[in-house]
C-alpha cells in the first residue's frame, strides 16, 4: 500500500490496462460528509414542514369548530319564532336562549336552546355549553359542550350615548343587535397566572334580537 490511495496502483508500477475499481479514501470522506450535510439540511426542512403542517391542521380544526358554532347559532336564529332572550349569572350576562324549529336527536321539533358560558372546574375559564329541550313535552334536556378554554365572554351593544360598545347589563333594555365577544385560548393555560399571556383567538359574532323577518310579518 502507498500514500496515494488505498486501491490505486503504485506509481511506476506497470499498468495492467484495466481501469482501477472503487473509491479513494478522500472521495469517500467527501461524499459521506456531503451526505451528512444534505441530510442535516433536509432533516431541518422536514421537521419544519411537519411543524407547519401540524400548525395548519390545528388552525383548520379551530376554524372548522368556529364555523360550525357560527352556523349552528345562525341557523337557530334563522329558524327562531321568538326573540333572543339573555340570561344572567352574578349580575353579568352569561348566555342567551332561542326558541326555534330544530333537531332534537332524530326528531324535528319546536325546541328551546340555551347557549351558556359556564365556569369550568378551575373557575378561571369558561365552557360554551348548549342545553336543548323540546318545548312543552317534558323531554329531558341534552347538554353539549361546544367550546372549551374560553376567557372573558362579554355581551355588548352599541350605545349612541357612549359612542361605542358597552356591556349589555349596563343597558336598561336589550337592543336589537348584540355583539358577543370572547377569547378562545389555543391551549389550556397551566395556571390562572398564565391566562393573560397565553395565545388566543378573538371570536366575535352578532346576535340579532329580531325574529326572522318572515315570521315577524
Amino acid at each position: 500500500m502507498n500514500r496515494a490511495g488505498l486501491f490505486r496502483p503504485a506509481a511506476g508500477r506497470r499498468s495492467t490496462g484495466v481501469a482501477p475499481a472503487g473509491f479513494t479514501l478522500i472521495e469517500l470522506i467527501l461524499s459521506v460528509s456531503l451526505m451528512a450535510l444534505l441530510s442535516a439540511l433536509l432533516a431541518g426542512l422536514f421537521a419544519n414542514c411537519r411543524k407547519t403542517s401540524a400548525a395548519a391542521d390545528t388552525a383548520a380544526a379551530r376554524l372548522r369548530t368556529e364555523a360550525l358554532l357560527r352556523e349552528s347559532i345562525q341557523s337557530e336564529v334563522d329558524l327562531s319564532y321568538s326573540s333572543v332572550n339573555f340570561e344572567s349569572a352574578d349580575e353579568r350576562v352569561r348566555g342567551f336562549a332561542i326558541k326555534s324549529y330544530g333537531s332534537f336527536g332524530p326528531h324535528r321539533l319546536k325546541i328551546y336552546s340555551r347557549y351558556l358560558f359556564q365556569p369550568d372546574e378551575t373557575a378561571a375559564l369558561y365552557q360554551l355549553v348548549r342545553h336543548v329541550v323540546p318545548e312543552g313535552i317534558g323531554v329531558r334536556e341534552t347538554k353539549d359542550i361546544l367550546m372549551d378554554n374560553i376567557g372573558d365572554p362579554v355581551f355588548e351593544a352599541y350605545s349612541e350615548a357612549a359612542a361605542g360598545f358597552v356591556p349589555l347589563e349596563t343597558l336598561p333594555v336589550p337592543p336589537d343587535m348584540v355583539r358577543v365577544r370572547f377569547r378562545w385560548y389555543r391551549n389550556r393555560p397551566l395556571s390562572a397566572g398564565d391566562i393573560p399571556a397565553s395565545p388566543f383567538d378573538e371570536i366575535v359574532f352578532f346576535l340579532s334580537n329580531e325574529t326572522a323577518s318572515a315570521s315577524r310579518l
Partner: protein
Amino acid sequence: MALPFALVVTLAMVILASDMGIRTQHLFDLSRKSLRLAESRSLQRKMERILIAINRPGIESLSASERAFRIDQFDVAISFEVMESRINISRLNDLTLGPQIQGLFGALLKRERLEARALPCAMDWVDADDEPRQSGAEKNDYIGEDVAPRNGPFEMVDELSFVRGFRDVSAFDRLRPILTTFGSGRIYLPAAPDELLDLFEDVYGPAVRNNLDDIRRNPARTIQLPAAVLAPQAQQFLQAMLLSAPTTWLVRIRLSAPTFEIQSEYVLTLTDEAGGYNRLVRIA
C-alpha cells in the same frame, strides 16, 4: 449509493408536496364554502321577501311544477306542496273539524296496523285534562320515560313519535308523509293523494270516495256531494271538511353550486286581504 439516496429524497419531497397540496386544497374548499354560505343567505332573504308578498295567482303559477332557474352562481329549485292535502293532527281536538279528523286519522292508523290504543293515547296527549280515557295514556303512564303529554295541540309531526302506541319507527315513517301540523285542517281535494281518498272510503264508504274522486279530477266543479250518498248530518260533516282553494303550502327551496348545496323548507300561509303580508315560517 448516491442514486438510491436521491430517489428516496425525491420520493419524500413528492409525498410532502402532495400532502401540503391536499391540506391547502382543503383549506381553500372550506373558505369557499363559507363564502357560498354567506352568499346563499342573502339570496334566501330575497326569496323570503318574495314569498311574503306573493299573491294567489303567483303561487298557482309557481306551484304548477317544480321550477329551476339560475341566480348568480346558484342553481335554484323551488317547489310548492299544498299542506291541505294531508291530515292536520294539530286539529285533533278542534271543535268543528276534530271529529272528522279523528275519523280519518283513526282510519289511517288502522290501515297502517298501529296498536289499537294509538288513537286514544294521541287524544289524551292533546286534551287538557290528566284523566286517561279507555286504553289511553296520560301523565302517570309516562313516568320514568322523561316525557309528559303536552295537553295541547301537536306542534310538529315528529312529536307524535313520543306518544304511546306510535313507538314503532317503521310504522311511524309510513304515517309521516300524510300528516301535518300546519294549515286549516280542511282538505283541498285536487291536491289530495290516493292514500287520503282511501281513508275517506274507509270512513264514509266507496260511493263517497267515487264522488270525491270526481271532484278531484274536475277542480272547477263546485264541491257538492249528492244527497243520496250520505245521511244529511254526515254530509254536512264532510262538506265542512272540504276546501275550495288551498291556503297553506310547504315551500322547498334548494340552492346549489359546485361543492355546495343548501335546502330550506318554509310553511307559507296566504293572506287574501289586499295589501296584507303572507305568514312565512321556516321549519328546516
